[in-house]
């Protein structure tokens, strides 16, 4: 089974360790992982900014890069959601591309979904001693239907306890360029999220999208919370938690 790994631009730039953790998990599940070397971005920033032409060009590039894989897996509900639920809209006037997009959409997965539902991972390499809470990222939850998979996988981590936060399905306020254009509103949403996280008393908030990670961690630190870790679910499952910087 040839699994095309879509690193995502944010993992590529901000926290490459997540990419390696994801690959480790995929390989643990028996996948042959292929990382197209020319990949950059799925085009979502352009798409959501109204720049359809650029979004389309980048989408076509992704389709070309992953056409020949059995699956496309991304450590992000947002990027996989873009490919699975929105690419079709970009090629509604191009039947040939629409067909290729449809085929790609059908084999596109968010990482935890793929691990739990397709690979049926029985054991995970990671261990953790402590309590975590899980934030459901919007696109993962509402575009990809990611809800049970990350929790099922976390339940396999020895030593880990999950304490659900209030409003775990409410947006953290990231929203791509929204976070900069409407920074004040975005920060308030992030602040609400931080309060819910802190109320659980968890040592770490775990999630599946880089955008939310940067937003939540950025707000936690500014609030003066230096101790609550913000971890990508892949890091935790793979047992590749980066050393705390503080």
């Amino acid at each position: 089974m040839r699994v095309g790994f879509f690193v995502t631009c944010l993992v590529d730039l901000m926290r490459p360790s997540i990419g390696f953790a994801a690959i480790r998990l995929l390989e643990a599940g028996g996948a042959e992982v292929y990382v197209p070397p020319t990949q950059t971005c799925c085009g979502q920033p352009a798409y959501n900014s109204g720049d359809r032409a650029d979004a389309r060009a980048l989408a076509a590039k992704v389709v070309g890069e992953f056409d020949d894989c059995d699956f496309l897996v991304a450590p992000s509900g947002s990027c996989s959601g873009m490919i699975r639920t929105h690419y079709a809209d970009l090629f509604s006037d191009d039947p040939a591309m629409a067909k290729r997009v449809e085929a790609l959409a059908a084999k596109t997965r968010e990482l935890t979904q793929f691990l739990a539902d397709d690979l049926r991972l029985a054991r995970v390499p990671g261990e953790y001693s402590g309590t975590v809470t899980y934030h459901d990222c919007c696109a993962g939850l509402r575009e990809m239907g990611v809800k049970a998979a990350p929790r099922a996988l976390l339940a396999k981590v020895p030593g880990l306890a999950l304490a659900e936060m209030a409003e775990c399905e409410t947006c953290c306020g990231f929203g791509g360029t929204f976070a900069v254009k409407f920074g004040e509103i975005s920060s308030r949403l992030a602040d609400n999220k931080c309060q819910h996280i802190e109320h659980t008393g968890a040592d770490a908030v775990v999630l599946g999208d880089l955008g939310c990670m940067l937003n939540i961690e950025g707000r936690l630190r500014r609030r003066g919370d230096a101790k609550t870790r913000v971890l990508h679910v892949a890091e935790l499952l793979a047992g590749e938690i980066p050393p705390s910087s503080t």
Partner: protein
Amino acid sequence: MEIASMHFKERAHVKLNDEHLQYNLKKMKAKFVSKRRESLVELDDFEGTREAGKAIRARGLDDLDVWLEIFERNATARGATVLWAETPADVNALVLEIATKHDVRKIIKSKSMVSEESALDHAIEADGMTVVETDLGEYILQINGYEPPSHLIGPALHKSKEEVAELFHQKHGTPLKTGIEELCLEARGVLRQHYLSADMGISGGNFFVAETGSVVLVTNEGNATLATTLPKVHVAISGIEKVVPTLEDVATLMRLLPRSATGQSISNYMDVLTGRKGEGEFHGAEHMYFILVDSGRTGVLASEVREALRCIRCGACMNHCPVYQNIGGHSYGWVYPGPIGSILTPMYVGLERAQDLPAASTMCNQCGVVCPVKIPLPDLQRKLREKAFDAGLRPWYERAGLKLWAWLARRPALYGFGTKLGVRALRSMSDRNGMIHRLPFGSGWTDERDMPAPSGKTFRELYRARGNGSAQRREAA
């Protein structure tokens, strides 16, 4: 209504820092969200009902002209007069004409958001008549100097009961009250006199039923029943998109509307008004008028956001919107707030005056999943973003930045080189805990948040360094 949607950011800033409002918004959110959730349990197939609701609304819109003509024919046959308003100004002119014809001095109104579009109350007062709002929320706003509504179904939801008590105390000259029941009784006492002395009642219209020529009104206070049946003239005003083919359709939509709005199985009152009072009938107005309003609706119908016209005005999208929940309805600056307002306002007042509204969304799609008629709100917001981008309404630096980034992202080698430098530059700006406190060109982020710095090398660099680079593809192949 005066348009302030171009000042969205400034208004949101004020509301975010209004502690009192923040308290009211939190209370309101908790109530709406939990009540709706609880009420859905009663329906054995909520998703199926949503699908049916969507289909009914879509059927009405697909042949809107035909259904409107059928409605006109049937309403006219029952003795009502159907009038058409192309613009907000036409709405006001028609109401004043009707009032003149019937020698009206006092008008009572039940809730009508469409009449807010044309500031009808002001036009009535400017013409020398008295107008009294009878929906409790609208009444509160009216006696507070015509404060604008902040919510589709609860126009005064931004106010606490203490604020309302103080307002009644001042405006009615009565002793200060504390309980909600006492306040409601006081309002009822004031409003009852107006019902009995008014010459004309104006209502909105939740639905216009084509097959019967009826208007359907949904309220919890019963004010619409009194306002439309006691005065000798009844004028129902609503948008042309509110027409539905049959009464059976209304039954389905009514399974969705109160539950999505307030979490009620059914609203306290539901009026189906058909024609004027006939021979030997006891209830009803002697003269019945419908004003069917375009005011931009046909434009929406012909646009890429036509699905927004399916809206049945339940308010669920705003009740569940994390942005609305934190900034309240007044930030949006016009009649319709929240996600649905972010589509309708730019369409009705012009995108150039309201382009922040579709942009001010995280696209979390919480609105889309609760909408009882399945309007894909974030997709429609994106369509408007596309329009703004194509029309050159976005600032040059945003366009240039986006274009440059997309140009690079299509050239992997160059992109790899650029990002390699970029992540190092950002890394160098961070403190010893790996946080950036101030981002050049990114103060929107760093004013109230840190930016976790990149770890210093890109995935692509590291992957290649591990020997998995471009060679891997050949091996695999």
